[in-house]
């Protein structure tokens, strides 16, 4: 048992932090977030070309780096810390994981290869507009027509859905409900019948879209895995992405804590730095506690995710680990953001200071892929029913 980063993992984290400190400072985030795509293509090209992050946990046979989920989580933590505006989460953590979990060898070779080359970004769409991120959220439908499938319906909260080149969508067989009848499809974004619309969001640093499908016709080669049996793999993909998102939340917690300690150590009132007041110190101590606890949760979840992908005795814990991490990290991030804003006082309320960017991210990440209450209810079902 060695529940700590290896030297190599430590290095990956530090390299990521140093790079992001340079390319994703406040000015860069504000530039990217006010554009409709939500990221600067030149920076994304640099990330794909120089850093190769988009290929981090893709197996080498598909052109990836072949690293593990622990490395991915370490990277997500840093991206959350610097609020990097990029299609990384949608492309790697959502669509990339969907290809890894549900794609055939041919599909993986074709699409993961393109993702790794940085030529393609991708998004995952399954939620028709529900606050519950389970099979009930899937409202789009498919039906057979000869050898092809006809898809209809809509999706909301599709991260980077308006810019992605490839969509992976979940739809259910007409008339089915629950976990039955769900199928995953590969859907190039330019396919006839696909309408995508950017949804402006409070958290401008991560873009969401609505996707509408009107009589979209797809061949059998677009189906991922077995038709009608898509819920199980999709549930796994959602759990994997949830863990990555929780890691991003931890990065945000850490940044808010650092910013708050720095600010309160400089701000003087009544001839003392406000950091010397116990009311401030105790709040900061609680922020550190929540940050460290959240970090313990995601490192464990990362190890579980790794085993869920590659095999191992902990693979069966995936859904629990995801819910434990996401419920704690969601609540911690928003609480810390609120406390940070309070401790910054008036300037924390301004557009100029960065606190609001994190407060807004905390709320958007909290609800994305299920908030604390949703994940606790998942845990409660397993414990109590």
């Amino acid at each position, binding site marked *: 048992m060695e*529940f700590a980063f290896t030297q190599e993992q430590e290095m990956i984290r530090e390299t990521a932090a140093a790079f992001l400190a340079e390319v994703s400072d406040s000015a860069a985030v504000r530039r990217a977030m006010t554009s409709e795509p939500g990221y600067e293509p030149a920076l994304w090209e640099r990330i794909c070309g120089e850093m190769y992050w988009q290929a981090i946990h893709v197996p080498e046979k598909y052109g990836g780096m072949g690293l593990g989920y622990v490395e991915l989580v370490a990277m997500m933590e840093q991206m959350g810390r610097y609020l990097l505006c990029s299609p990384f989460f949608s492309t790697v953590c959502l669509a990339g994981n969907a290809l890894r979990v549900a794609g055939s060898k041919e599909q993986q070779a074709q699409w993961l290869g393109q993702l790794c080359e940085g030529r393609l970004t991708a998004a995952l769409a399954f939620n028709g507009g529900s606050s519950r991120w389970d099979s009930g959220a899937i409202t789009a439908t498919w039906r057979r027509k000869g050898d092809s499938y006809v898809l209809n319906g809509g999706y909301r909260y599709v991260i980077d859905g308006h810019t992605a080149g490839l969509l992976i969508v979940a739809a259910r067989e007409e008339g089915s409900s629950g976990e039955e009848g769900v199928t995953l499809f590969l859907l190039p974004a330019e396919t006839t019948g696909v309408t995508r619309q950017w949804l402006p969001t409070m958290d401008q640093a991560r873009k969401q879209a609505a996707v509408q499908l009107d009589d979209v016709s797809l061949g059998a080669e677009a189906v991922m895995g077995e038709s009608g049996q898509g819920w199980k793999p999709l549930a796994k993909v959602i759990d994997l992405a949830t863990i990555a998102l929780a890691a991003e939340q931890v990065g945000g917690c850490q940044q808010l804590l650092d910013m708050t300690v720095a600010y309160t150590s400089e701000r003087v009132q009544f001839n003392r730095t406000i950091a010397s007041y*116990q009311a401030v110190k105790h709040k900061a101590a609680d922020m550190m506690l929540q940050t460290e606890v959240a970090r313990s949760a995601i*490192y464990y979840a990362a190890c579980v995710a790794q085993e869920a992908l590659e095999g191992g005795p902990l693979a069966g814990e995936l859904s629990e680990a995801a819910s434990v991490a996401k419920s*704690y990290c969601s609540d911690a991030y928003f609480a810390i953001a609120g406390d940070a804003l309070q401790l910054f006082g008036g300037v924390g309320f301004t557009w100029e200071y960065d606190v609001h960017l994190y407060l807004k991210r905390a709320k958007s990440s909290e609800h994305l892929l299920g908030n604390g209450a949703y994940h606790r209810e998942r*845990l409660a079902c397993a414990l*109590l029913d």
Partner: protein
Amino acid sequence: MKLSFSPEDELFREEVANWLQDNLTGEFEKLKYRGGPGDEHMFPAERQVWEQKLAEGGWTCVGWPKEYGGRGCSIEQQVIFFEEYARAGAPGRVGHIGEGLAGPTIIAFGTEEQKRKYLPGIVAGTQLWCQGYSEPSAGSDLANVKTRARFDEGQGKWLINGQKVWTSLAHESDYCFAIARTDPESVAHKGLGFFLIAMDQPGIEVRPIEQITGTSEFNEVFFDDAQCDADDIVGAPGDGWKVAMGLLGFERGVSTLGQQMQFQNELDEVVRQARNNGAAKDPAIRQRIARAHAELKIMRYNSMRMLSGQSASDGTLQKEALIYKLYWATWHRSLGELAMDVLGPECEILEGAPYALSRLQSMYLFVRSDTIYGGTNQIQRNIIAERGLGMPREPKGTAK
């Protein structure tokens, strides 16, 4: 990062589990799940017999080096031992203060003679220890020790005068390790000595403190010219604070995993009650049980981080270790409240007069002490802010 244990360690786990299964039977059956924090007053004599049974099997002081009678277990094996011990419902260790605190201090700072004199009794489970730190005026301000130690040249002994408080197991103990002021002119953490004091002598009086639970496991200990041999000071006079604080460095959190198994047993009991009385269908209760479950899981992961972390050369705690006390104490206190809210109005009804508490009732009341002893939540927050975040230290008050 690697979470799994090696095959050798898994064999060790089997060995521990089998031994406990074979030996925690017969006369020891009634000790199961008893004698933990809040329940220390139960079966002290029987638990000492159990302690000696453990010693026969070589299961006391498992983390101590072999040369001092320990088992020389790796961190992983210690984790496994404490986990299996708690999983089996084996009783609260009546010897834990000797094994976890007195012994390691003597090993680190004691003379060869002190090691020969005291370690074998701890390993054998024949000699029990208590800790004399807190005093009526030295609570959070632990260094404000008033108890004095004066060396009497005529008798060639230290004479101890003063009072300690919150001394758990004092009435069952053979020895007490205590800090007392060797330099009467000194203040705060300077001028203290660390003493090993025999409890069975005329100069010591132990008075139990009746607690919120109606039971007593904490005591007041009065020293009135209590004697301590010249050889029974650890370190030099004036080094007492350094020795006492050195204890903190030994605790990397191995035993916390056993404590968490006890928490798990309690949470399981809460879940059982909730399923029995229908509270498990109440959405608000479901949320709270799930939260308790999730946070206990993370408590374990946090301990694993503590155990795997490099121990800093300057003895400072890493961040995940700094937050640990505040985290578990607050969690445990919430569990007590949850337990009562799961029971509903039935939580009021005692098992009998005058004040027989059920396990959950006792837990609910006793956990109020968790956020106070060993550094209150407020002191913990000061420590976290100052040592973990580098924020300014609290200003010192001026003496009246």
